């Protein structure tokens, strides 16, 4: 079985965001991590392989630094990695990323049974790539998945919907996007880290995929980024509990008018 995990390298969730003079978000001094939701995807891919055999290929679109994220996934237990790295993809939108991934997975890396992704990245948080990729590859998809099982070539996934959950049966090949709770992500072991250094990591440019710069044109353009208006500390209510509570209720009614 061929199992693919798509990942993205992103800022640490503890990172403070700084907008540079050019109106773009600066990554200077920011700690980079594997997008947390993608870790669940990689973990599920490795668990599926451990149960049913096969190989796990981790793929990403990114710059040179993204190799570190791929090595981390190899250290977790993935078999090999592919990085699509091209200057034309710097600042790529979800459309461009999914075009590049779809081309890779329909030609050079064709023949997969399952693709795992995170449900969204914690940076731009749009969560478009899983659904766009599923459409481009004409796959069944289950989004925001908290439980996954594979038996007799049939996949069963439980996913979050607003106010509840839903269980789906999918015909393979299928795309599963992972939500927190799907599994407990392992830390790479020391032997895993050593082995990862020798595992294959292929770097491809757009030309290697048979794509042109026009093929991956972004359709969404950032005009400007700004920091949101900072919230200010409001009133601190002090005194005996009964007084404080009465004051709060009065303020919520008369000043804030929210109850």
């Amino acid at each position, binding site marked *: 079985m061929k199992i693919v995990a798509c990942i993205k390298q992103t800022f640490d*969730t503890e990172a*403070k*965001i700084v*907008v540079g003079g050019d109106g773009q*978000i600066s990554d200077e001094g920011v700690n980079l991590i594997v997008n*947390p*939701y993608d870790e669940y995807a990689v973990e599920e891919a490795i668990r599926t392989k451990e149960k049913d055999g096969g190989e796990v290929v981790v793929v990403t679109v990114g710059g040179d630094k993204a190799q570190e994220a791929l090595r981390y996934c190899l250290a977790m237990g993935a078999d090999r990695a592919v990085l699509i790295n091209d200057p034309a993809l710097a600042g790529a939108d*979800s*459309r461009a990323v*999914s075009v590049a991934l779809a081309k890779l997975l329909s030609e050079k890396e064709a023949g997969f049974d399952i693709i795992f992704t995170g449900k969204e990245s*914690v*940076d*731009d*948080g*749009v*969560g*478009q*790539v899983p*659904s*766009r*990729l*599923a*459409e481009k590859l004409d796959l*069944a*998809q289950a*989004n925001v998945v*908290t439980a996954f099982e594979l038996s007799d070539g049939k996949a069963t996934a439980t996913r*979050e*919907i607003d106010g*509840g959950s*839903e*269980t789906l*049966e*999918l*015909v393979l090949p*299928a795309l599963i996007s992972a939500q*927190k709770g799907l599994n407990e992500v392992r830390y790479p072991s020391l032997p895993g880290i050593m082995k990862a250094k020798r595992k294959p990591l292929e770097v491809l440019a757009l030309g290697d995929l048979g794509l042109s710069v026009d093929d991956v*044109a972004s*359709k*969404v353009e*950032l*005009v*400007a*980024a*700004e*920091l*949101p208006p900072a*919230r200010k*500390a*409001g*009133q*601190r*209510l002090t005194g005996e509990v*009964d007084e*404080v*509570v009465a004051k709060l*209720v009065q303020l*919520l009614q008369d000043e*804030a008018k*929210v109850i």
Partner: protein
Amino acid sequence: MSIVVCVEQRDGKLRKITFEALSEGKRLATASGETLKALLIGSGIAGLADELKKYGVDEVAVVDNEALAAYTSDVYAAVLAAYIAQENPALVLFGHSAVGKELAPRTAAKVDCGLVSDCLAVTFADGDYLFSHPVYAGKAIGSYKVVGPVRMATLRPNVFAVAESEGAGAVVDFAPEIPAAKVTITGVDMASSDRPELTEADIICSGGRGLGGPEGFALIEGLADVLGAAVGSSRAAVDAGWREHAAQVGQTGKVVSPNLYVASGISGAIQHLAGMGSSKVIVGINKDGEANIFNVADYGIEGDLNKVIPALIEKLKELQ
């Protein structure tokens, strides 16, 4: 040309986000001179068209077919793409709900157009639409344009005001070819709760590590009951196993923007603030006077939540 709102209904009931999207669609259509259309997809749902007319819709296109009784992204995207091919809208609006989050990008890939997800504002000026979308869960806000004839956006629930208005209100049938679904829904488990859904709630009461244990959520639930609120949780309380992840508010949980957010026993880590910072009014209750939540709370109470919350519940009950 037109602005199309993709209507969301579940079990024959329209979702609140649909009224928000229609209201925003009407405001934009008035600014840009487009007509406002609504696409209603499902089985046995034609009767819902009348309710949609209240929001200034010029035309409701109804796709009523037994094969569409259960939503699946692949089939619904095919229906939408067929409608878009016929209609050539300038803008298609969805709710940023569980459905919209996957249906919009799947449709966008089929149509090959740009999509801005989770918009906090959409404006029309100088002949183009500008979309405002938070990045890093609201730690920064980006303004975006979409290149191409068709633009798509999903709108964050609870942000766009609902307003009724007049429209031509025509109802037409649309009957595209419907492909076979690639997935089968074998079970649905809706939380048996009278409480509002977290992302749609007007009021949210959240608890964190300061509750001291899972039993602490009984206090939060008591407060939520008297306020008609949803119950949320910090990541710390979810990681400790006190609450299921579906209740988590923050960068790796749900992003919410209620009218009132009451944070009890929550320190206010940057991760959590990212998920609730766009709430209209924030109340912080914490025994640690230095807690970061007090830097963003409109009203802060430094004290023992085991005393403050019961007193607050009593006071609120007096008002009812």
